[in-house]
């Protein structure tokens, strides 16, 4: 019996010690363990696609910070308390939209990817050589730079982290860096990566794919924007001028020379407002240098359609402010030669032939032919619907197709594409850059545009809106005056696209003039509340979001911003 006992205990001992480790080490299902990825060239592709996947959830916050705080939007009847706070410029640190975690999830994923891509290059140099490594790293650097730019725009000073984090031991607390320091670093990253961005092919399918990823055009736009934020206007112009439609070798020269009489392809003739594109292929061909694409059927969603709609799942959380609707309705239009409608204006959207020539006054300024920017306004930027006014930009995927509850893809409720760099706003960015390097007149000219096949059409002329003029009585510098006009035009051209608040902040900072933002935003409030809002927004502390209180609570190096 003792023998039997011994056998039993020997058995136990064997089982407990020898079979050991494997039994209590289990590969998770449905996930890949860190360390099991970044091994092959294919892993590089999926890792980079994943980064774009992490861009998608950022849109909601970018939109709330960039648009809803601004003067073009107010809270609708379906706004919850968090959206209301933002729309009413009284955001609190408990507001979950002030949490930057999702942005850093992308930053950390970029950091991990950079380390991982280098690892693939080490493990498999044959299939994944240095060229591919450099291209991919450049793409990741641009994605990270874009993410940090959003962080700086929304929160201003934020922690800057370039380390990868793959285990809890690497988790740390970091103090926020100054926004200009961050800008300097990401500009350096972007400059380093610029040579490795491969040009786009002309294949339209490829274009659709490439333009929803970081491509050379997008990277130029981004780098130019970074320079703009850093105040390096000459660098910014040198970057943006290489981008179509600025690719005339001596465009800068021509601009300074008064471009009249120049012959050649009309630069903006084929760049109608993207939101008026008549079909999908136009939409995707060349007007959007970079957009974030969504596929609701794969759970990729943003809240833009939901927030701006009032039925079919829409909650009508935000709506156009009365002042922007008034601006659209009162914009003076150019009278055309063959203007023959009772509405008092006529726009030929085919934009060919000479029958669209404007009627000019003796001084060359066009005759005003009625009021109302009806190309970019109702039906495109906004749409009245019963008692409500919907923000319409995300509610149509192609022009003229209203949302039909029976026809639509159920996923289309929350998978609107989001433009990052669209022709109109990029064009106005170029004007802003040009103006700030001192070429105000030229900036004004390319914004206003002109008729004919031999001149740019500008964002204004292409929709037949009368040109903006400087006020001869103004005592402000010409540059500041033109910047104000650019802001005025951008409200019409880029309304509700998630950038208004950022523009107001950038201009106000440039001139150290809080009234540029405070007075503008106050206009969306009832008169009784305007002075309170002006007082609040005169304080620069309120130009960026507070840090989310939970982050402040756990990071001793992250003090809450003053005023919150």
């Amino acid at each position, binding site marked *: 019996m003792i023998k039997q*006992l011994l056998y039993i205990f020997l058995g136990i001992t064997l089982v407990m010690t020898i079979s050991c480790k494997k039994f209590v080490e289990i590969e998770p299902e449905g996930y890949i363990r860190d360390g099991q990825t970044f091994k092959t060239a294919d892993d590089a592709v999926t890792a980079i696609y994943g980064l774009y996947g992490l861009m998608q959830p950022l849109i909601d916050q970018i939109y709330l910070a960039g648009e809803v705080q601004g003067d073009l939007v107010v809270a609708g009847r379906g706004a919850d308390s968090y959206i209301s706070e933002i729309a*009413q410029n009284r955001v609190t640190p408990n507001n979950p939209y002030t949490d930057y975690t999702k942005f850093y999830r992308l930053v950390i994923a970029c950091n991990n990817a950079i380390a991982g891509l280098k690892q693939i290059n080490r493990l498999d140099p044959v299939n994944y050589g240095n060229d591919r490594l450099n291209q991919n790293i450049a793409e990741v650097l641009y994605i990270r730079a874009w993410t940090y730019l959003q962080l700086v725009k929304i929160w201003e000073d934020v922690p800057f982290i370039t380390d990868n984090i793959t285990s809890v031991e690497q988790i740390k607390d970091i103090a926020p860096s100054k926004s200009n320091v961050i800008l300097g670093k990401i500009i350096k990253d972007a400059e380093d990566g610029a040579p490795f961005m491969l040009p786009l092919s002309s294949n339209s399918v490829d274009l659709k794919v490439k333009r929803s990823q970081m491509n050379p055009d997008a990277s130029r736009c981004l780098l130019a924007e970074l320079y703009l934020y850093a105040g390096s206007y000459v660098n910014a112009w040198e970057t943006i001028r290489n981008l179509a439609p600025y690719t005339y070798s001596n465009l800068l020269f021509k601009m300074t020379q008064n471009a009249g009489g120049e012959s050649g392809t009309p630069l903006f003739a084929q760049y109608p407002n993207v939101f008026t594109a008549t079909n999908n292929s136009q939409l995707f061909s060349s007007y959007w240098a970079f957009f974030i694409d*969504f596929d609701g059927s794969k759970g990729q969603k943003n809240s833009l359609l939901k927030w701006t709609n009032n039925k079919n799942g829409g909650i009508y959380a935000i709506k156009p402010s009365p002042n922007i609707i008034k601006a659209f309705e009162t914009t003076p239009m150019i009278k055309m030669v063959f203007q023959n409608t009772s509405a008092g204006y006529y726009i030929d959207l085919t934009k060919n032939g000479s029958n669209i020539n404007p009627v000019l006054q003796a001084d060359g300024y066009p005759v005003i032919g009625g009021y109302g920017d009806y190309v970019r306004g109702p039906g495109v930027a906004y749409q009245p619907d019963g008692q409500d006014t919907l923000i319409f930009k995300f509610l149509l995927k192609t022009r003229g197709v209203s949302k039909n509850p029976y026809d639509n893809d159920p996923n289309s409720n929350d998978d609107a594409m989001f433009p990052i760099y669209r022709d109109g706003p990029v064009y106005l960015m170029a004007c802003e850059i040009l103006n700030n390097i001192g070429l105000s007149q030229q900036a004004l000219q390319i914004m206003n545009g002109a008729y004919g096949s031999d001149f740019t059409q500008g964002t204004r002329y292409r929709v037949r809106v009368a040109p903006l003029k400087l006020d001869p009585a103004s005592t402000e510098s010409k540059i500041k005056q033109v910047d104000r006009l650019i802001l005025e035009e951008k409200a019409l051209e880029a309304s509700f696209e998630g950038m208004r608040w950022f523009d107001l902040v950038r201009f106000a900072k440039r001139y150290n003039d809080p009234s540029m933002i405070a007075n503008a935003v106050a206009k969306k409030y009832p008169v009784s509340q305007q002075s309170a809002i002006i007082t609040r927004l005169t304080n620069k502390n309120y130009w960026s979001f507070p840090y989310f209180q939970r982050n402040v609570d756990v990071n001793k190096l992250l003090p809450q911003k003053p005023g919150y």
Partner: protein
Amino acid sequence: MKMKYRYTCVLAMMLLACYSLDAQLIKIKGTVTDFLTSKGISQTNISVKGLAMISTESSGNGTFTIEVPSVYSVLIISYPGYQTKEFPLYGKTSVAVQLVQEGIDVGESTVRLPYYSINQKDLNGSYTVINPGYDKTIQYRDIYQMLQGKVPGLEINSYSGVPGEGSKINLGGARSLYTTNEPLLVVDGLPVNNLVFDQSVVRGNIYNYLGDINVKDIESITVLRDAAAAGIYGSRAANGVIVITTKGGTHGKTFLDVSVQQGITLRQKSLPVMDASQYLPYLSEKINRQGIDQQTRNQQFPFFTNTDKTNSLYWTYANNTDWQKQVTRNAFSKNYYVNLRGGDATSKYSFNVGFDDADGVGKGINASQFTSRFNLEFRINPKFSAGTNISFSRTLKALMDQGYEERVNPLYLSLVKSPITAPYQKSDGGLDREFFAQPTFDRLSNPLAVTQAVSNDVTNYWLLGNIYAQYDFNNSLKTRIRIGLDRRGLQEDRFTPSNGVVPVNYDLRYNRTSEEQLINQRYLTLEHTITYEKQLNNQNRILAFGGYNFEIARYALNYGYSIGSPSDEFKGLGDGKRLVTKGINEKYNNRSAFANIDYAFREKLFVKGGIRLEQSSKFGENANSGLKINNVPVAVLPYMGLTWRVVGGAAENHSFVDAVDVHTSWGITANQDIPVNARYSLYESKFYTNRPGIVPSSVGNNSIKWETNKSYNAGLNMTFLNKLIGLRFDYFNVVTSDLLVPKAVDGMNGASYYWYNSGKIRNNRIEMGLNTLGHAGNFIWKVDLNIAKNTNKIISLPQGLPIIDGAYGYSSISMQGKPAGLFYGYKGLRVFSTDAQAAASGLMTDKGVPYVAGDYQFQDLKTDGVINESDRQIIGDPNPDFFGGINSSLSYKNFDLDATFSYSVGNEVMNVLRSKLETGAGYENQSIVVLNRWVTNGDKTNIPNTRFADVAGNRRPSSFYVEDGSYFKMRSLTLTYNIKKRISFMRSAQVYFSGYNLFTISKYLGWDPEVAVGQNVFTRGYDFGNYPLAKTFMAGLRIGL
């Protein structure tokens, strides 16, 4: 260290083994008498424990002689209708044995536990044994009823009155914030995990598998309450253990029992809501406040102007429907049960089949359950035996949404659906047509259509079985191998139709939705044990066992959601447009080794010690543990117990005091219910449009480990007057440390939290129990009372930060120095009486809307003029101050009357349902208290105005809806008539009548203060308006052949 221990153990075993086997047989004389009447009992079976070959029967006056191998043998005396008794000889050759009738608990019955059988009084530790008696289990309705009110410190709260849904069980307070607080269930030696499934696609429903065990199969339930008792189950024993032993067979005789029960459950009392005459003025006021124009008004609410009776529109709205009546019913239930047991000298078997079918009081709700169980034990040769316990159950349920869900929840809809509408479309004459009335101005589904057309079908299969083989080296030393399988499959199909039902978000594209959920769960265990049990001499008795086991667990969930099928007839997942599919696969492995020694000295001093060593694939490699084997961390979980029998013992007899035991125990148990992948840093798949990508999904904590419970227990048990009075007192101090919590990190790390072990909770519990037994002539009465007070306190949390969590828009908070899971919300002050008052407060809502007269005023904690989340505070405590139960029974001749009561004092309830019935946002019907609402400036009332869309947030979670949920309930009352007269073909028979939930005494304003929303600490005490427990009456007949 572990190795060393193991060899010491081997040595000890070998030494002990030398004592075994005594060839000479000794003759023992004895008598068997009835405990109450002291009369001799004939034909009792007397055998020797561990030696099935030796047995005898007592003679007519109860005397017997038997030859045993040792004067320290243990006799087993059994007789139908009496509790089987294990009687240690303690060296005596002449003995007097008292047998106690079943159903009378004097604390001396034999309990079959997974590793050994023992006389209840010799259990060293804090145990509660429920040994209802073979015949009595048949009249129980479910396992909860058997436990209810009987175990000190055990809280049992029904999830709802839906049949088959089960109850929340808690033993010893909230010990964990994010892992399970359920006790471990052990059925016939097999641990059963993940008892509660609360992710049902049927909103507000929960599945507790415990309810799938047929209560009629149960021989005994033993609740292991302290570390000394539960410690052998190690990392699953943190919340105590409930050991269920099912009925086995018999040697020799064959018994067949058949029982039939029929019952009726009465619809619950209606909550008072407005009728048509009260609703119309209310609605009118609401519309006025909404400020819509006259034209829209006429269009949307034609009944205010259209009084032409020839118009069918008139009849559509000229109703006064009692919707609560429409969706409820008096529900019938039936239950059938057959039990066959028998055996011969070498084998015992028991075969049970049960069928239960119960309708819910809510129309459309039904649960039907088939259970079967086969237990077999057989001896192959004198040394080798084997056996199996296999149970299979199949449950089919038709359910309805309940609780927080509003769109297709018939009970909720029946309260808020406008009474002026009718269930069916009306003809011009006002007569019902066959079609359901469609949702109209109130945008609420037709409750009757919901009960008839929404389908929620749940099918569950559960196979729980084990086979074992045992080898007896000799009378004292045995080894056993057991293989167990717990295999569960749950399928849920849900369909919401278009007819009579509003679509999701009123979005027409979602007007037909199908959901399907499939769950497969598999636990495979292998366990090998060795047991040594011996009365060494008249001073020393020893019981030692040890072993090891392996556990392989797999879990798979698949879920699909589709919308827009072509018609209400197409209900399948494949009939609509696929929207969501997802799957979860989880697996983990465990292995453990354990050992336990119980030593008794002169039956006065009982010492126990044990240890369990556990490894799991869930534990991180760097987990901080005292022991590592092959670099794999091991949870070392020791325990010990000490009982001193101050009075009583082997050979003592006392007139007044029978026995006084003091016991104490200390031990470490653990909770290993941690996320299976928390230790790993993971990448997950993430598509960008249709481009496949991978992204980091979680940061792994390779130090993740079990939660540790250090528990200390001290207690006193006393019995007086020949065991007629028993008094128990227990004190527990349990400190849970290494709490599994999401540790918040700055989001700049790319994540907002990771799973982490930090923080401590302490539970102090005092329990008292009193049981009395009396008899006079033919009367036998018994009363058991128990009371428990649990004090829960969070000692520390990571970074000292409070944790706020919850569900469905309601939050509870856990913070240092306070009990876990307190209601967290707004403190209500009053209803603004005048606009001036509201303006003077200077307050506005978090949506920027200024308050007006008739709105609730909430405390502006942060004094910033805005009522927002910063103003939330603790507004209530769902933990009871004390709770307990009362059981009483009375027998007179052939009649038995049993009653069970339970009570809870000081628990607060957040009455969410009331908030919905008093501050309707749209055109819902409301409680009649809304008749006292604020109407004009100057009104002083505590019911707010009728502001449309609740713009002022009057319905937000506030102290206005926190109520005292103290209650005293009669759980059950059963009158039994035992037909004892022998009828030729019948052994015995019983007729019984039961009533359940006959009354509740409570000040609570809702249906039932006994609310339980899931197991989560952060959702306790919320009443979302589930189906309440309702009065049930049942009649039953049992015939034994």
